[in-house]
């Protein structure tokens, strides 16, 4: 699977988006911390985290005996560049052409 496909697949699941939101709010959490207040078995959280790591959306650092999870925004930025900004720019160009045309009349 291509890197970008993994990112879209990872983001397609609400539980994984929730985990990303939690890490965005507080980076560097352990599995235990991430499980707190989540209505999900520890085992599923582990699986979701593995999928997120494989998609490069989180990175894992070992500090002593703990594994700390950190959100990596770079792939989402790549989606933004490739799939969002490009289309915004097209629309903005269209608007400014429209304005130029109207003002010439």
């Amino acid at each position, binding site marked *: 699977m291509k890197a970008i496909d993994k990112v879209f697949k990872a983001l397609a699941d609400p539980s994984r988006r929730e985990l990303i939101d939690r890490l965005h709010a507080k980076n560097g959490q352990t599995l235990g911390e991430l499980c707190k207040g989540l209505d999900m078995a520890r085992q599923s959280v582990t699986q979701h985290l593995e999928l997120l790591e494989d998609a*490069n959306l989180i990175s894992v650092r070992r500090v002593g005996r703990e594994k*700390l999870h950190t959100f*990596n*925004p770079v792939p989402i*930025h*790549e989606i933004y560049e490739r799939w969002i900004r490009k289309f915004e720019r097209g629309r903005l160009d269209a608007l400014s052409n429209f304005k130029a045309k109207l003002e010439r009349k």
Partner: protein
Amino acid sequence: MNNAPFVYVTYIAATPQKVWQALVEGELTRQYWRHEQVTDWKPGSKWELVADDGKRTVKHVGKVVESTPNKRLVLTWGDVADAADASKHSRVAIDIETVGQMVRLTVTHDELTPDMRRRISNGWPRVLSSLKSFLETGRPLDVFA
């Protein structure tokens, strides 16, 4: 307070040598970052991040902590106003590892003040996406548009 470092990871289809060159050579960084790093890359030497804006505005200052070609770069990173106060400087480590046919580039930005945390959080993803595009396709992204 949250003191966890920011960790940014990107995979680039290039050699460690190419990635290193793209990081340290001003001629290249100007193309995808619109900045260059002015330093002789020796540990202990002064380091400056200079904007390619015609006026060569100094954006950040610090020191080179470690510089191992094609592998690892560590810098202290502070605001120009805090140039003399090393206690306010953050720390940036850039690691280059080979993973299969790719290079895994990791930027770890640590020891941040809350103010700097806010400001850098958007910067690195843009720079890294642009670097990746530059090395893989020859075209940088329009990073600061």
